[in-house]
C-alpha cells in the first residue's frame, strides 16, 4: 500500500508573495495494490506538488510517504513509473535507445532493458520507428514513447500527472486500457485529470483536493452516498406557485419547470406535481463526479 500522510509544502516567495505560498496543507491519502486512484482538483490545488513529492523530485517540508509499510526511499522509488505533467524526451535520441536508457536508469540490466524495450515497441506499434530520432515522430507517437519510458521497467507503482491531456479519443482509450492492465496486475495507479467523466469511469477511488488539502476521498459510490441522491421532477405548464412549500429549487425553461431536491417526501412532491400539471419526468438521480467536485471545492 502506498500511503501519503500529512504532506506540507511551502514555496519560498518571490517579490510578489513575500510570505511564500502554501502549496500543500497536510494532504494525505492511500492507494492499495490494484487500485486506480483519481486525483482531481482545480489548477494550483496541489496535485502536481504532491506527485512530485511522491516521486522524490521535490522535498516536503513535513509529512511522509510510505510504500509497503516502509518510508519510501530512492531504491524503492526507482521501481516506480512516472509521467510528469510537462512531457519531455531527448529529441535527438533514437526511440529504442531512449526507452532502454530509462530502463537502465530504473535499475534494469542491459539485456533486460533491451528485451523490455522490444516488447513495448511491439505492443505500441513503434517497432519500425525504433531507430528514428524522437523529433522525427508525430506528436501521438511521441506520447507513446513517453508512456513507454514510464512503463519500461514494469513499475511497482504508477504515478501519472495529467496523462490524458492532449490525447485524442482513441489514444485516451488505448492509454486507459494500458493502465487498467497494469492495475489488474496489482499495481497501484495514481493519476490526476481534469476530465472527470474519465476519472469516474476508470477509478476505483477518487481524491478531491482543494487549496492543498484533501477535501473528499473515497470510492465513487461512497462520495455519491455522502452527497445524497437528487430527486428531479419535470412538470409541463404547471399552475403558478405549484411548488410553494416544497423543498429544493425550481428552474424554469419555457413551459417546463424542473424541481431538484435532495430531501422531502417524494410521494407528496409527486402528488403536488401531478395536481399542478403534466409530469414529464420523475426520478432519482445519482450525482455526477462533476457535481460532487463542485460541491466539495465550493
Amino acid at each position, binding site marked *: 500500500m502506498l500511503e501519503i500522510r500529512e504532506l506540507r509544502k511551502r514555496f519560498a516567495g518571490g517579490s510578489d508573495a513575500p510570505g511564500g505560498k502554501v502549496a500543500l496543507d497536510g494532504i494525505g491519502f492511500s492507494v492499495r495494490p490494484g487500485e486506480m486512484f483519481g486525483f482531481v482538483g482545480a489548477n494550483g490545488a496541489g496535485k502536481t506538488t504532491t506527485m512530485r513529492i511522491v516521486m522524490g523530485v521535490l522535498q516536503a517540508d513535513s509529512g511522509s510517504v510510505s510504500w509497503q509499510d516502509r518510508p519510501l526511499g530512492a531504491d524503492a522509488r526507482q521501481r516506480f513509473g512516472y*509521467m*510528469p505533467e*510537462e512531457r519531455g524526451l*531527448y529529441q535527438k535520441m533514437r526511440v529504442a535507445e531512449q526507452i532502454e*536508457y530509462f530502463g*537502465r*536508469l530504473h535499475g534494469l540490466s542491459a539485456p533486460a532493458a533491451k528485451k523490455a524495450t522490444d516488447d513495448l515497441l511491439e505492443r505500441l506499434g513503434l517497432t519500425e520507428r525504433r531507430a528514428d530520432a524522437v523529433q522525427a515522430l508525430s506528436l501521438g507517437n511521441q506520447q507513446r514513447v513517453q508512456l513507454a519510458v514510464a512503463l519500461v521497467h514494469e513499475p511497482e507503482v504508477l504515478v501519472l500527472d495529467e496523462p490524458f491531456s492532449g490525447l485524442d479519443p482513441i489514444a485516451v482509450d488505448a492509454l486507459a486500457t494500458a493502465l487498467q492492465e497494469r492495475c489488474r496486475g496489482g499495481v497501484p495507479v495514481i493519476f490526476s485529470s481534469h476530465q472527470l467523466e474519465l476519472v469516474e469511469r476508470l477509478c476505483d477511488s477518487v481524491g478531491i483536493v482543494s487549496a492543498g488539502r484533501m477535501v473528499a476521498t473515497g470510492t465513487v459510490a461512497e462520495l455519491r452516498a455522502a452527497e445524497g441522491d437528487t430527486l428531479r421532477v419535470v412538470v409541463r405548464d404547471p399552475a403558478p406557485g405549484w411548488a410553494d412549500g416544497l423543498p429544493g429549487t425550481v428552474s424554469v425553461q419555457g413551459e417546463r419547470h424542473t424541481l431538484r431536491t435532495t430531501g422531502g417526501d417524494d410521494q407528496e412532491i409527486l402528488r403536488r406535481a401531478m395536481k399542478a400539471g403534466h409530469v414529464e419526468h420523475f426520478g432519482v438521480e445519482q450525482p455526477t463526479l462533476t457535481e460532487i467536485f463542485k460541491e466539495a471545492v465550493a
Partner: protein
Amino acid sequence: MNGLMLVARREIATQIRTRAFVIGLVVTVLLVSVVSFLPKIMGGGGDSYTLGLVNSQQLPLQTAAPDIGFEWRTYADEAAARQAVLDGDVDAALVDGARVLTDGEIDAQLGVLLQSVNREFKLGAAGVAIPPLEMRSVGADTRYESARQGVATVLVFLLFMLLMGQMVMVAMGVVEEKGSRIVEILLASVRPWQLLGGKILGLGVVGLINLVAILVVGLGAASVSGLAADFPPGMAGLMVSVLVWFVLGYAFFATLSAALASLVSRQEEVSSVLTPLTMMIMATYFVSFYVLNEPSGLLASVLSYVPPFSAMVMPVRMAAAEVPMWQTAASMAVMALAVLVVLKLGSTVYERAVLRTGARLKFGEVLRAR
C-alpha cells in the same frame, strides 16, 4: 554510482557519434600534424650552408658546429666560384685558403665560424693547441628557450579551446534537459548529483579523448619530423601534468557552467548566462599569454597559485621554464580545493534551479533560498 555511470556513458555515446565531434577531431589532428612539420618545411635552409672551394683545403667546420649541415663544392678557378656565388649556388666560396667570396654581406653566423675555425686551423698547423673555452651557465637553463616557448604557446591554446568548448557543451546539455522538462523524469530515477556529475564526467572524458589524441598525434608527428629533437627534457612529465591541469580546470569551469545554465530554460539564453564565466576563462587565457613572455616573473609566480588562473598559468610556467615539483604540487592542491568548493556550490544551485522552468533565475537568490 550506477546512475552516474549510466548518465556519463550516455553523454559519451551521444557526443562521439555526432558529426561535429568526428570532424572536429580529424581537423585538429590534421592541424597539429601540419604545425609539427611546419618548421621543417618553412625553415629548411636555415641551418645548413653550401660552400665553394677553390684551391683550398676544407675547414673542419663540422667539428666546430655539429648541429649545422655543411656541403662543399670544388670549383676550378676563382671565376667559376664567383659565378656560383652570384647565382646563389653556394652561400660563400673560399679561395686559396685566404679569401671568402660572398654575394653582399656574409651571414653573421657563417662569418664568425669561418674566421674562428680558420684561425684555429692555421694555429694548429703551426703546432699551437688551444683548449676550447668551457661554457657553463650558472643561471636558468636557456638552451631550449624557444622550443619551450613554442610548446607553451600550443599548450595554452589547446587548454583554452578545450576548456571553453567542453564548458559550453555542459551548459547546452543542462539547458536541453531543463528546457525539454526531461529532467523531471530523470530526477525521478537518479539523484541530482548523479545527473550533474554524470554529465560533467561524460563530457570531460570526451574532452580528454580530444586532448590525448592531439598530444599523441602532435608528439608523434614532431618526432617523425625531427622537431622533437629540439624539445626540452621532461616532455613526458609535462604532458601528464597538462592532462591533470585539464581535468582540474575542466571540473572547475564545467561545474560553474552547469550551475549557471540551470538558471535558464532556453538555449538562446545560454550564452548570456555564461558571460561571466566566458570572461573569466578569457582573462585566464590572456594572463597566460602574458606570462609566456616572463615565465619566471612575479605575476607568473603569484597567479600560478590562484584558481582558476593557475589551471593555465602553471602549465605555461612549467613548459616555459623549470618549476620545482613542490610548487606544482602546491598549486594543484589549491586548485583541487577550489574545485571542491565549486562542486558544492554548483550542485546546490543546480539542484534547486533545474526544476524551476520559466523566467531566468538569479544565482545569488537561488543560493540564498532555503
